[in-house]
């Protein structure tokens, strides 16, 4: 019966969280932190696919997050709410609860498409050129958003709270917890399935010896493309969830600092380790919140702490291992694929 252990655990966790939120045991602030954790897990695991498993150095993850955030926000606001920018809702707002996941996925697809555009030139280049191309892409995306006045330009875009209200008309449950949880689990499943397939093992082969991979029949260009698109697509979904969690987006919140945060989570967790990325995302989110009272000191303390951690564990928290490698007994308990 071990194949049911993980699903049961996840359902219990989700209902507990939603119950706690429903009965207002945990206030909005804590709920937001929990949501951020979920979103950061998507961010870090998806970036880990490119930077950890594939061994490339993508530095502009926030650019894809921004694309997903904007596309899904604009869609959901235009479709389900009355707004000054887009006028009356295009669809009955009651549909928001069903339409929202679709909108998120479209945001993810848009981000994946952007990822495709960014990745294409990077195939003719080597090593750290992907770093540059993604940094430049991050700049370009932010700059493009700033220059589109229709979606608020530098002021940002808002109205997503009303989408949540529209969903609550359907049923009054903490919707965002539900969606973040579902998409977090989905993206972990996607990454996990991808990396455990023979197809996905080609990604590891590329990292360890690209020449050998190509000669041993791995279509390296295609795999790189697919992997990069999965990574940026999931980042887009994280962006959509982020935008709807805080209710407004601003181009500045997707700058290179945000990309840096994603990088930190990946390398803190350990390159190529999914559980490492998850743990790092949770730890990092908590760290950001717990140290908030320190104000500006926080932004000295956190980097300092990270430098010190890296001095003691230069391979990240988990290295390239998974939890089940460290605690083999876990394998008896779960079968998660």
């Amino acid at each position, binding site marked *: 019966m071990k194949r049911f252990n993980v699903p049961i655990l996840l359902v219990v966790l989700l209902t507990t969280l939603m119950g706690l939120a429903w009965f207002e045991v945990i206030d909005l602030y804590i709920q937001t932190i929990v949501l951020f954790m979920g979103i950061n897990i998507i961010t870090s695991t998806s970036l880990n696919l490119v930077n950890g498993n594939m061994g490339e150095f993508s530095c502009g993850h926030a650019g894809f997050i921004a694309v997903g955030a904007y596309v899904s926000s604009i869609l959901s606001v235009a479709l389900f709410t009355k707004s000054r920018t887009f006028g009356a809702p295009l669809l009955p707002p009651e549909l928001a609860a069903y339409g929202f996941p679709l909108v998120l996925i479209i945001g993810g697809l848009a981000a994946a498409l952007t990822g495709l555009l960014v990745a294409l030139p990077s195939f003719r280049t080597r090593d750290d*050129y992907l770093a540059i191309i993604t940094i430049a*892409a991050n700049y370009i995306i932010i*700059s493009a958003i700033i*220059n589109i006045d229709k979606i608020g330009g530098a002021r940002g875009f808002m109205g997503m709270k009303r989408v949540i209200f529209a969903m609550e008309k359907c049923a009054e449950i903490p919707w965002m917890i539900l969606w973040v949880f579902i998409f977090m689990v989905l993206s972990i499943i996607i990454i996990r399935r991808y990396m455990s397939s023979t197809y996905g093992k080609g990604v590891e082969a590329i990292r360890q010896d690209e020449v050998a991979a190509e000669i041993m029949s791995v279509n390296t260009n295609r795999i790189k493309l697919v992997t990069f698109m999965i990574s940026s697509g999931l980042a887009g979904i994280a962006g959509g969830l982020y935008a709807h969690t805080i209710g407004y987006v601003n181009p500045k919140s997707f700058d290179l600092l945000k990309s840096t945060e994603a990088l*930190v989570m990946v390398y803190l967790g350990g390159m190529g380790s999914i559980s490492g990325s998850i743990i790092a995302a949770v730890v990092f989110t908590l760290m950001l919140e717990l140290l908030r009272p320190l104000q500006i000191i926080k932004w000295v303390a956190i980097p300092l702490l990270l430098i010190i951690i890296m*001095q003691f564990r230069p*391979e990240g928290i988990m290295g390239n291992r998974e939890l089940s490698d460290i605690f083999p007994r876990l394998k008896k308990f779960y079968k998660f694929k």
Partner: protein
Amino acid sequence: MFDTLLQNLLNALQWGSFYSLIALGYTLVYGVLRLINFAHGDIVMVGAYIAFFISSLLLGQYGMPAFLPGWAVLALTIPLTMVLTSVVGVTLERVAYRPLRRKGANRLYVVITALMAGLILENGNLLLLGASRKKFPEMIDKVVYKFGSVYVTNLKIGVILTAILSFIVLHFIITKTKVGMAMRAISYDKFAVPLMGIPIDTVIVFTFVLGSSMAGLAGILFALSYPILDPYMGMSIGWKAFIAAVVGGIGDIRGAFAGGFILGIIEIMVVAFFPSSYRDLIAFSILLLILTVKPTGLFGVAQTTKI
């Protein structure tokens, strides 16, 4: 029309000088260590602040009697700043990067450490000096030369000439001196170099000295040209200079030098003809286009893989 173009070109050369000087530091460290030293932009900021304190001190702030004329203060500030900035750069290498290298960490962990070090420099500065911006003192009187309708300040000429001169000096060091040759040797084969009896750590420290002093110089020149200092001034200019270095062909100092000027020219020209909010959008699109056409950068040589 021609005059406007010429005026813009001069501005672009000045603006490109900063990028070039910073890109040189990036490319030196990258060439030797294959490390993207993301803290480099913030080293520039540190350089600007060091220059601010030295010059203020010499100009009679903080209770020191002012006994030197402005030009002498500047002449003293430049070398002092370069020395002190390189101390900061080398400290970073010794404290943060070298231990990681010794432990055999994946080089990307060193890159992340560099990113973190940059954040510490920025926010540490904010913490120590507060959020108020600093006004960089004026040490030499501004002289404006007028050619037709084109205006050139002595500062502008100074900046451009300094950038060119530093490149020439650097080029000489890299190609003609023993330590420069050692630097290039490390970039070819870092395993063989210690076997040849070359002290690899000394060479690396020297690389950081060179790179950081260039950053210090860029910091002073930037502060002289745009005399408002704030802790985040180095961040974006640093990222951009890195991109410039890659477009030039990272690891090659000619590439960094050229790349810096190319980025400067593109940015100024974009602002001259488009709304300034389009600057990043157009500039980076052009750079990406260059990289798509010439993936190794302008001066980069394609590496061949041996089987």
